[in-house]
């Protein structure tokens, strides 16, 4: 992977964007401009001062005062307001790059499955605008419209209204329970949606797959815990001390597909024939047996023995169905 000069590129994009913003908003306060671009007022002031030193080489091939941006320094010093008094060349925001437009368009198409954003006329209009606002034709990127899950809308409205929801939940062990939950945030990973919420039964934040919820209902009970009060981590599943450590043998070619189970510091030791050995952490074997079942020939659990047995029994029970079914057919 080549190192990307993300910082310099971001700063150039900022300079090209803040100038038209300041031109369009004469007299904006340093504080407001800073908030708009996510900077501190001191940072914004420093950026504005820096812009005043820049411009174009003039008729004499040197930078004269008339060739540089300038501002009303009195207004800045006494009122904290920014007025551009001499502007150079640029008036409007830059276009999007083809890749920026393509990524935004793909993101918008993905959002078509999210209730609350599903006004397809608005989305289609936005997508057309982005394609037109790019400096080159964006690469062809498209996403099919998956069926929106009605449960998402119920949970989303409950978050907005600050009320508790209840649903029957089937966990990976196959156990079903009615769970009263204060909903905090709806998250997705590709096509799978998760609710992060405060579970009243467990007295802690839990993650629920939306497609495992049944009989979902909003209650009339106000939520005790709200998104402002509970800071959620960026990662969906946090490692816990109760996790089980499992040794696996994995085809190198399957590492990308298995990446979400590997920790960032996972050691991958070569094990011959294009395989590696590593250890992973799982909450319980029930998740593991399902994953292992989808990766026949690519993933083998090496230990502990209970983990191997859980996988073998699960697969054997599946295979046995075919022998029974065959007998029934006569």
């Amino acid at each position: 992977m080549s190192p990307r000069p993300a910082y310099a590129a971001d700063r150039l994009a900022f300079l090209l964007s803040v100038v038209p913003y300041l031109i369009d908003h004469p007299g904006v306060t340093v504080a407001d401009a800073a908030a708009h671009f996510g900077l501190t007022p001191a940072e914004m002031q420093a950026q504005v001062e820096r812009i005043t030193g820049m411009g174009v080489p003039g008729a004499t091939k040197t930078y004269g005062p008339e060739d540089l941006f300038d501002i009303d320094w009195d207004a800045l010093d006494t009122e904290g307001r920014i007025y551009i008094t001499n502007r150079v060349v640029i008036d409007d925001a830059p276009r999007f790059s083809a890749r920026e437009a393509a990524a935004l368009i793909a993101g918008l198409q993905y959002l078509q499955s999210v209730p609350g954003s599903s006004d397809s006329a608005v989305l289609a209009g936005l997508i057309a605008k982005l394609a037109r606002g790019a400096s080159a034709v964006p690469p062809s990127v498209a996403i099919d419209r998956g069926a929106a899950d009605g449960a998402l809308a119920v949970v989303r409205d409950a978050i907005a209204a600050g009320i508790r929801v209840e649903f029957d939940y089937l966990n990976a062990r196959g156990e079903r329970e009615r769970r009263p939950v204060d909903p905090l945030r709806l998250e997705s990973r590709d096509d799978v949606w998760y609710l992060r919420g405060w579970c009243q039964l467990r007295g802690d934040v839990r993650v629920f797959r939306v497609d495992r919820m049944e009989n979902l209902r909003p209650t009339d009970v106000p939520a005790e815990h709200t998104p402002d009060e509970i800071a959620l981590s960026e990662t969906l599943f946090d490692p816990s001390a109760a996790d089980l450590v499992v040794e696996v043998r994995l085809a190198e070619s399957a590492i990308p597909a298995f990446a979400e189970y590997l920790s960032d510091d996972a050691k991958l030791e070569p094990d011959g024939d294009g395989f590696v050995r590593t250890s992973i952490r799982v909450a319980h074997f029930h998740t593991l047996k399902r994953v292992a079942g989808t990766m026949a020939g690519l993933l083998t659990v090496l230990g502990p023995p209970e983990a191997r047995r859980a996988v073998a029994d699960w697969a054997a029970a599946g295979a046995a169905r075919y022998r029974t079914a065959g007998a029934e057919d006569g």
Partner: protein
Amino acid sequence: MPRIVPPEERQFALVLALLATEQGLTKEQILSTVDGYHQKYDPNGDNANLERQFERDKDALRELGIPLETVDAPGEPGNNQLQSYRVSKGDYELPADITFTPTELSLLQLAGTVWREGSLSGDMRRAMIKLRAAGVEPDGSMLGYAPRLKQLEPAFAPLTQAIERHEAVTFPYLRPGRTTARRHTIKPLALFQFRGRWLFMGLDGAGRKLNFLLSRIVGDVVSTRERFDPPAGDHSTEALRELEELWQRNTATVAVEPGSDAAMRLGRRYGGTTPDGRLLVVHYSDLALLADELAGFGPEVTVIEPDQVKQAVLSRLEATEWAHRDREGAA
């Protein structure tokens, strides 16, 4: 000592100079006058380092979507030294009629966060900075959602770039159902997501259209630098439509254990079960992928027909059991 000009200031000065010129500036003119270059320019000496700097800055501008034009000197086509550079204002600026409402901005912000983890996150950050130029504040209408396109697949960025530049790519690919990867060289045409999976479509050496799953690309996607002329058409929409047709055509009937994870998840994904809740018709675009998914459900799913899906699932279950059962007498 001349002041050291930070890279973004030098590049900003370059953009301004290129926008300001009508007829273009030669490399010589740029290096000798533009802020950040002229301080290091030696009128009598070797400016090789500075020239390399200029080449890198041109790439940086193009990365940001700034449409840099090169103009040949009259009567001297292809002469690098006499070529001049400019940026047309009309091609640089966002058209004046493109504006965004607060609700649209909220949507765009959410669309941007979808890429938070991947190799496009830098592009997204810069797109968000550009969006702020208009001064519109989002209305907060999309709070409460944190959608992510996981995009573990590092192939996404090199593929979008290759599609944009019409360059062939080479990459190792693990076909579903196989255990060893094979290298392919493909002219990529379209990138798309189908039923939660990222795919790309391209032409092989014989001009056949092939689909590849990004998650099965098991090494770096490398451009061959070989350019091609893409056939006309909206390739991603067409590829999606063809895959959808295939998906509608391919069906398997499975029995699901009532109340199980399989019954719930497959039921939601593929629509209703039969009245007794036991039989379910599932669609698929790739037999091996379907068999992988069904085998993960163990005893919760039994394939009724067709036979080839049944055999594929059973052989996976048997292989998994065999690999995990400790045999008596084994060391």
